[in-house]
C-alpha cells in the first residue's frame, strides 16, 4: 500500500533542526559524560578506553553500570567477566528495543540499510526529540539523525575532560570520586519520577538486588534486581485499568 503521507524525507535542513531541537538536553548529557569520564578514571580505565567506550557503546546508563561491575585494576580478564558485562549491558539497554519499535511507523518509509545505519545513534534524548517531532506531524528523518549526531559528539567530547579531572586526583576516595556514579545515578531518579505507583517496581528492584548481593556471585545482583523490577511492572494492573 503506497501512502503519500509516508514518503521518505531526509534533508540537511532536517538534520540542522534536529541539532536545534536537542539543545535543551545537552547540559544534562555533558554532565553525564563528564561524570562517566571521572568514574571511569577512578576505576582505572585509560583515557583511550573511556573515550572508545563512549564512542562505540554510546549509552550512558549501561556504561556506568558496566563500571560498577568492572574487574578490579590488575585483575585478569576472563571470558566469564566479558560475558557478564555483555549480558548486563544487554539488560540495561533492552529498553532501546521498545524505542526502536515505536519509531516503526516513521522509519518504515526508508530503506533497511539506512535504518540499520542511523539506528546506531538511537538514544533516549534523540528518540524523545524524534517522537515529539513525529507526533507533531514532522516526517524529516534528518531530525532524528541530527539530534543523534549532536548527542554522540557531545558524549565523546565531554568524556575526555571528565577523565582528565578524575586522573588528576591520585586518591579518588579523598574527593569522594568513587561516589560519582552512585550519586549521579540517584539524582537521575528525580526526572524519572512518575508517581508512587510507577516507583513500586524500583523498590522491588532495589530490595531484590540487596538480597541477591549476598546470595549471588559478582554483580549478578544488578541484573536480578532489574529483572525483578521489570517483572513487577509487567504483573501490575495496566495503567488506567
Amino acid at each position: 500500500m503506497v501512502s503519500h503521507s509516508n514518503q521518505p524525507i531526509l534533508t540537511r535542513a532536517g538534520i540542522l533542526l534536529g541539532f536545534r531541537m536537542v539543545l535543551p538536553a545537552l547540559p544534562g548529557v555533558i554532565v553525564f559524560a563528564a561524570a562517566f569520564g571521572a568514574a571511569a578514571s577512578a576505576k582505572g580505565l585509560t583515557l583511550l578506553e573511556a573515550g572508545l567506550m563512549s564512542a562505540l557503546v554510546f549509552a550512558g546508563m549501561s556504561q556506568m553500570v558496566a563500571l560498577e561491575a568492572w574487574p578490579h585494576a590488575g585483575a585478569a580478564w576472563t571470558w566469564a567477566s566479558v560475558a557478564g558485562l555483555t549480558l548486563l549491558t544487554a539488560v540495561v539497554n533492552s529498553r532501546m528495543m521498545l524505542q526502536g519499535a515505536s519509531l516503526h511507523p516513521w522509519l518504515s518509509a526508508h530503506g533497511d540499510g539506512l535504518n540499520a545505519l542511523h539506528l546506531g545513534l538511537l538514544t533516549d534524548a534523540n528518540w524523545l526529540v524524534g517522537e515529539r517531532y513525529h507526533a507533531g506531524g514532522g516526517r524529516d528523518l534528518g531530525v532524528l539523525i541530527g539530534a543523534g549526531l549532536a548527542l554522540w559528539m557531545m558524549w565523546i567530547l565531554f568524556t575526555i575532560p571528565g577523565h582528565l579531572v578524575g586522573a588528576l586526583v591520585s586518591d579518588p576516595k579523598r574527593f569522594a570520586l568513587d561516589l560519582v556514579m552512585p550519586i549521579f545515578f540517584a539524582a537521575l531518579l528525580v526526572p524519572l519520577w512518575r508517581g508512587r505507583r510507577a516507583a513500586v517496581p524500583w523498590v522491588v528492584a532495589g530490595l531484590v538486588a540487596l538480597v541477591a548481593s549476598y546470595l549471588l556471585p559478582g554483580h549478578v545482583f544488578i541484573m536480578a534486581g532489574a529483572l525483578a523490577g521489570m517483572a513487577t511492572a509487567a504483573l501490575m494492573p495496566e495503567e488506567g485499568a
Partner: protein
Amino acid sequence: MSDLVASVTTPGVLVAILAMALVTYLCRVSGYFAMSLLPFTPRLRQALAALPGSIIAATVLPLVERLGPAAGIALAAALASMLIRRNEILALVVGLAVAVAARSWGP
C-alpha cells in the same frame, strides 16, 4: 610496541568494550526490525518503562549498603538538591561535598 599498547589499553578491556558495543547496537536495531515479529503488548511496555529506575535502584542500593553511612547521606543530599533545583551539576557537587565532609567526621 607492546609496552606502548599496554599503556593505552589491554586486550581484555578492548574485547569487553567491543562486546558491549555490539550488544548495544543489536538492542538499538532489533526493536525496529522485530516490530513485525514481537508483540509489544501493554505489559511488555510497562515492564520496559520501569527498567531505567529499576536498574538505578538495583545498582545503587547494594552499593550504598556496602559503602556505608557517608555514601547514604551523600546520596540523600544529592536527591534533595535535585528536588529543590533540578540541576545535575549542582546535585553532583552537593553530593560529593557532603560525602567528603561526612567521611572526614566518620571513622
